[in-house]
């Protein structure tokens, strides 16, 4: 039995990397053509959960709400976190959910996961038009302490407390790292700059061992997957999907781009004349710089 239960909520998102993303002629995202992948912030959340696996031998569960293809995101997150339980909340009724309705589904799902959760991780936000509210709202619904922008954490298993470092960005001032202690359970929204560090031999060994286990598990991910529709999840349809969403996004506007003040020039690397030009430009730029 593990002494620490950890859940991660993740999201399948359009892959904005080169070669995967496709746009409509009007500049909006072509969802049908664009490949999907585990969102970058979800990836960081999965890394943060894996840290708990390596350091505290935590039991990891992952949940997501989405269409059936979202199971690929669960598989990817399992590959990163060595999860033992994958939840997909998938029902037509869930469609059109705003952050609050999504939080309702996730909260119910998390409560259905094996064991009582000690920590729930979410990404900082989704990269395809979400406002970073799903996390806090899920935390609120679960009744967990919410810790945002976490960049590092340690657990005291015996006393069931967590010490976390939060990156607080103060506009106009330098960033501040705030260290806080809280009793478990907590809900952590992980900062995009989070990087797990494994400093001892035993941590590195555990890292290698669980990474291997994760690879094998992810190859057989269906074995760990449970899919829930509205009834199976047992949520009240009033609180999910469109009916449960008090906010409706009715229009997304592109912010007009400012006119570029810089002028780009394409140089050909195989042309020595061009190279000379580039070098002289660099020299010019460097000469104008004052190095203190």
């Amino acid at each position, binding site marked *: 039995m593990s002494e620490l239960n950890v859940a991660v909520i993740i999201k399948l998102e359009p892959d904005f990397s080169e070669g995967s993303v496709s746009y409509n002629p009007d500049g909006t995202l072509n969802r049908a053509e664009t490949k999907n992948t585990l969102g970058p912030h979800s990836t960081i959340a999965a890394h943060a959960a894996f840290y708990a696996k390596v350091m505290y031998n935590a039991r990891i569960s992952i949940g997501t709400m989405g269409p059936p293809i979202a199971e690929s995101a669960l598989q990817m997150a399992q590959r990163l976190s060595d999860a033992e339980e994958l939840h997909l909340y998938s029902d037509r009724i869930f469609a059109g959910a705003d952050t609050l309705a999504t939080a309702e589904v996730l909260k119910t799902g998390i409560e259905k996961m094996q064991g009582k959760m000690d920590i729930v991780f979410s990404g900082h936000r989704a990269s395809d038009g979400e406002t970073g509210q799903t996390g806090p709202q899920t935390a609120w619904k679960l009744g967990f302490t919410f810790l945002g922008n976490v960049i590092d954490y340690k657990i005291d298993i015996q006393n069931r407390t967590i010490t976390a470092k939060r990156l607080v960005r103060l506009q106009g001032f330098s960033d501040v790292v705030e260290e806080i202690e809280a009793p478990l359970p907590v809900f952590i929204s992980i900062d995009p700059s989070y990087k797990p560090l494994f400093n*001892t*031999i035993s941590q590195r*060994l555990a890292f290698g061992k669980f990474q291997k286990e994760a690879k094998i598990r992810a190859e057989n991910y269906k074995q760990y997957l449970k899919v829930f529709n509205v009834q199976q999840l047992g949520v009240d349809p009033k609180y999910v999907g469109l009916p449960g969403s008090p906010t409706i996004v009715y229009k997304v506007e592109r912010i007009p781009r400012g006119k570029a003040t810089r002028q780009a020039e394409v140089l050909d690397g195989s042309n020595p004349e061009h190279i000379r030009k580039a070098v002289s430009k660099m020299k010019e730029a460097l000469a104008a710089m004052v190095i203190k």
Partner: protein
Amino acid sequence: MEKYDVAIIGGGSAGLAALKQLSNLRKQAILVEAGNKIGSKNVSGGILYSKKSKKGHVHNVEDVYGDVFLREAPLERKITKYILHSTSKDKVYSIDLTAAHDYESNFGYSVLMNKLNAWFADQAAESAQKFGGGIISGVHVSEIKFDEQRNTSIVKTDELEEFEVKAIIAADGVNSEIAQISDARKKFLPSQLYQGVKVVVKIPEDVINERFSLKSREGVAHLFAGDVSLNHIGGGFVYTNLDTLSVGAVYHFDSLLENPVEPYTLVDAMLKNPMICEFIKDDVPSRRKIDKNLPQEEQLRIRFAITKLIKSWNELRESYFSKGKRDERVKSGKYQSVEEIKEKLDSIREQLTQKYGVIFVTDYVEAEYSAKLIPDGKRCRMSKPYHRNILFVGDAAGRGIFVGPRIEGINVGIDDAVRAANSISRAIDKNNFSSDYLGEYYSSSVEESPYTKDMKQIDKDYLKIFLDASKDVPKDIISARYSTVLKLMSSDTIRSVAIKFANILGYERLLPMVESEDTYVKVPIEIAERLGKTVSKTYEPTIPSIAERIAKLKFNDDSNPHIKVLKPQSEFMKKLVTLCPTKCYSLENDNVILQHEGCIECGTCSQETDWKHTRGEKGIVYQYG
């Protein structure tokens, strides 16, 4: 502080064998390797031998890894032919030395260290895990402190918290930092070392089979002496791998210092030899200049399209010319039949020629350039390869065999590793890590190894094979220096006596006579000129410049230099401007300056520098090795 029984430093073939053997003996060990991926820092020629020696028992690779080794390890080809060529310009005289290759040997496989060490690592890590050990890569050991009271060592690294162990196996290669940190031995001298430089050439599997008249998975080793050496002591080799060739040049460091040439010119001399030209040639797409009058975007589009098509063509061709890969493509359903692959291949080729003006020429394709020092065990093996509770194995202990054209380092390191692991296991059982119980025991075990005997004495039966093979060479070619020796050696009865006498003299006195310019340069050239067949080349290979070669290598750049020049004006360092294989040194105002970014950690400059490997994960990342 965390505590473990054993630390193994260095994840080359020797260190990995030590880990596997300790796990076979149910002992806990941690292997620490600087490279990010196991295998990424290792270079060999190379042929991996398994031996059956008359002089005693050796521990072979298959003894360590079990039957699975021959079934599953990524071995390239089983070497079944071994041929020595004397060269002079377009003349080549060849002697079949397969008997010398087969001497006391179970098998010899051509291997590429990157793949092979990764496989060894998988096997060793899985076993080690069962006993609380394993492999940690991307970590560079920087210091070792001996705790007199506890009789243990504390290992410090650049990346992790320090940890304590009862014993250490130093398997950190020819440029061992552990040997320096612990004061176990001095740095090897140029007179004790060879410099090896190698390129990997790509050629489809079936083309290799046909060109070298080989059955599937069979291989050949071609050795070269004569004018390809550019007057240096040493020689070159071409080994067939599955779908690549290893073309290398190995020269005595002293002879390079005496007559400095850029190391790559020695490989280039090999590549330009007419026989080797014909070995390496292939059908190579050559781009034509894109019309500069086209709009920039269009030029870019065309460049990308050509790159993509050439890549597809190369990949598909590689599969088409390999029975295994061909069948795989059809089996996977990607193609209906082999004919369909051929059709697709032709259609890509046509698109390239018709639409993009690409022409196909006879040339060769170089995949990787590499270099490394090699210790000559005859001259530099540690007489007692231990210091306190640290046991040295493989290249780190200066243990490599150079007899005639044969280089043996991998198998020797594996034998050492088993002996070290066995000695440590015994020490763990008795909880006695004293020098007497551990170090001396290991040292005498190594002394008993047949490999050590090969590093100390001439094996008369092995020598006879050479003499028999070269009996057609007219005696008058061989200079006066050898004629009496030869006379003595040719008679079976006198040979024994002569060799006994020679062995009394010892290698130190004999080597300058045998390993001389006469042996490696003058005699082979004369043989080639008088007896050789003319081989003509059908094309001139386009040899990449050193800048192009470096650009092709993968580095994980480190802003911190890992080498410090100590004597910027010394004669040695000035020669390094020529002898560094990747031109890291230059001369400015009579001072030698280092630009460490292109360093491939060969160790050639280590003699007069403060030399360390890069920090964990940094530096060169070889793809073949």
